[in-house]
């Protein structure tokens, strides 16, 4: 087994991490790849602690201050590290019980996105909770880091929701573009999807070459001996995809993500974010 092909599961200390672990174990097992849990401890050196507003400086103030700040940081980091370790080990047990073979854990200091960008190199698949610790209290429906993480990474990302069910039926949201054709190729070639029922769905505006593109996708998938259901439903893509996912009991959605610039997303919203919101099944996002 090659370290460069690991499944990287990003977890934080929330109950969503359990489902990340389940899906990551499922993927690692099917792909025969090692699994690694990554917990990023976000330090905030830019936030001061400041209780001393006396404004007085005296002999050795600089040395004392440096010592005191280092000490505070040390205590905080140590506690975080210990908590993180216990929690990661629990997830490791869970993944091992679920059948993953080689499971590693790792804690890193730093900011989430930049740490993931560093770690992405050795990963083949990244598993991410669609919501995290802050959702436990705020109840928001999509984590605040998700878009930023997805935008800055280049490997396939599996975003999971809060329930685990081994996927049986996958749906490719297909529009004939480069990234969705890659999705078809990936599904055709990856052991992750072998033996699963594949739906290819095309929607949106009426297009002349839709049938041809769909046919190509079907041929690619069938040549690998997969069960393919290809269909074309004109109409609003978001509604139709969400509708189809429910009607056909699809349990994994595959789509291209965030192909437009952040500015455009800011002004018009993002189809990816909308879909992540409206569909309740895990999604594999390709960049």
């Amino acid at each position, binding site marked *: 087994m090659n370290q460069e092909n690991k499944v990287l599961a990003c977890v934080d200390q929330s109950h969503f991490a359990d489902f990340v672990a389940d899906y990551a174990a499922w993927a690692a097992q099917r792909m025969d790849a090692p699994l690694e849990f990554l917990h990023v401890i976000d330090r905030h050196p830019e936030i001061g602690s*400041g209780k001393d507003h006396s404004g007085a*400086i005296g002999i050795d103030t600089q040395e004392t201050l440096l010592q005191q700040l280092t000490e505070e*940081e040390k205590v905080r980091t140590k506690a975080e590290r210990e908590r993180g370790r216990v929690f990661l080990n629990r997830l490791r047990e869970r993944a091992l019980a679920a059948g993953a073979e080689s499971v590693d854990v790792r804690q890193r200091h730093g900011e989430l996105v930049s740490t993931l960008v560093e770690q992405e190199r050795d990963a083949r698949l990244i598993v991410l909770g669609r919501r995290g610790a802050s959702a436990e209290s705020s109840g928001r429906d999509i984590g605040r880091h998700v878009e930023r993480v997805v935008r800055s990474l280049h490997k396939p990302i599996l975003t999971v929701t809060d329930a685990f069910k081994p996927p049986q039926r996958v749906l490719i949201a297909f529009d004939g573009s480069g990234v969705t054709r890659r999705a078809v190729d990936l599904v055709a070639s990856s052991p992750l999807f072998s033996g699963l029922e594949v739906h290819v769905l095309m929607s949106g505006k009426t297009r002349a070459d839709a049938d041809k593109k769909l046919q190509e996708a079907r041929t690619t998938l069938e040549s690998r001996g997969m069960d393919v259901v290809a269909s074309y439903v004109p109409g609003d893509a978001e509604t139709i995809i969400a509708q189809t996912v429910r009607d056909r009991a699809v349990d994994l959605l595959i789509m291209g993500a965030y192909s437009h610039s952040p500015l455009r997303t800011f002004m018009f919203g993002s189809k990816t974010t909308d879909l992540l919101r409206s569909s309740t099944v895990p999604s594999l996002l390709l960049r």
Partner: protein
Amino acid sequence: MQSIRQDWFSNVRNDLLSGIVVALALIPEALAFSIIAGVDPKVGLYAAFSMATVIAFTGGRPGMISAATGAMALLMITLVKQHGLQYLFAATVLTGGLQMLIGWLGFAKLMRFVSRSVITGFANALAIVIFMAQLPELIHVPWTVYALTAGGLGIIYLFPYITKAVPSPLVAIVVLTALTVLLGLHVPTVGDKGQLPDSLPIFLLPQIPLNLHTLQIIFPVSLAMAVVGLLESMMTATLIDDFTDTPSNKQRECMGQGVANIVTGCLGGMAGCAMIGQSVINVKSGGRGRLSTLTAGVVLLILVVFLGRWVAQIPMAALVAVMIMVSIGTFNWGSIRNLREHPKSSSAVMLATVAVVVATDNLALGVLTGVLLSGFFFAHKVGQILRVRSVAEDEGRMRTYTVTGQVFFASAERFIASFDFKEVIDKVRIDVSRAHFWDITAVSALDKVILKFRREATEVEVVGLNAASATMVDKFAVHDKDGAEDLLMSH
């Protein structure tokens, strides 16, 4: 976007609070340094406002405090005395221009030649100079001034034991001012020292003749101020980097100091730079972001413009107490404890830096001395790494000298002296393949050795010169090519 938010708004409450604390600590300094420079207090106050406000946006080290400083004030005394205020404003603008140029050229990297000892010496010298600048306020004055100063120091250091929520220097100033007014004491006050600001600063270009003569007057002062300002700013930035465990952008800081000084000159302020003492106070009070610097500048201006009438009543003794506190806080007391333990050369560099500054009142000269001295000491140390061994061969007809180590200007003399020219011998072989010839001095020393042997009719063979002189990296320019390390370390 992410970093703007992080630099400005990640620590709002602490930044605002510490900014206010720093603003209060800036007032006495700005006043005191104006008095050192021989200008009206409002020049220093405007400078403190504009430096802090501009550097909050342009600086490369969030959380660092810049304002009018003592190091800069000392350099402008003569200029102000001989040519007046407008020339000072022009020099301030030129200082900013030079700092931007230095930053743009990437000279911030040269800071690596400034050793730890020089930096310690700089801080100590600064502390001594700040302290000495207070002495005129303590000579030929009524005894009440001494009493007030002592009382002020007592409040500053003892008040934090009661509460740390209120800046004790401010408490000292308020208490001493109230005492002088209530008791009707006749002691010098800030109002006696010159005009205080009564309005917001206005943007004006300095009124000076734009010709070569003017440039001749202001350029030397501006250059010294640019260098000293950047040095103190870089040092303070490093200090804050250590405190907060975050990196800073030194080049941006250089450019930012430049912009801040240009704006300050045009707003009628004196040149400034980062301040060690105030920056320490800021970090101590929890300030980390740019907002703390901006708050300090804005609050300072509001205070002095609207409370100007009261500021004039502050007795000088209160300011002296605050400045003595700053000088105690800036001085590196550990360096005195370490004098005995540290290598003598390091201590000598530190002491020389301090001595030159105290003698000349010019921090730039002190740092230059320190840097040169550390260079000398280093060359001397490396020059010790030279061994010449010899062994007679061929029944005493030939002698082989084996040279190992560093041959350069500081060790060339020793290199020559290790050969025995009076020995009666047919042939000499000099094996230099395990030596490094660093410069022309080394090569000519070898030439000299060869000539001397020839005069004694001794035949000379040099082995491995190519390998040895490969270290003259300038000539062969191997230092920037692949394999340079192998070449240098192989013999």
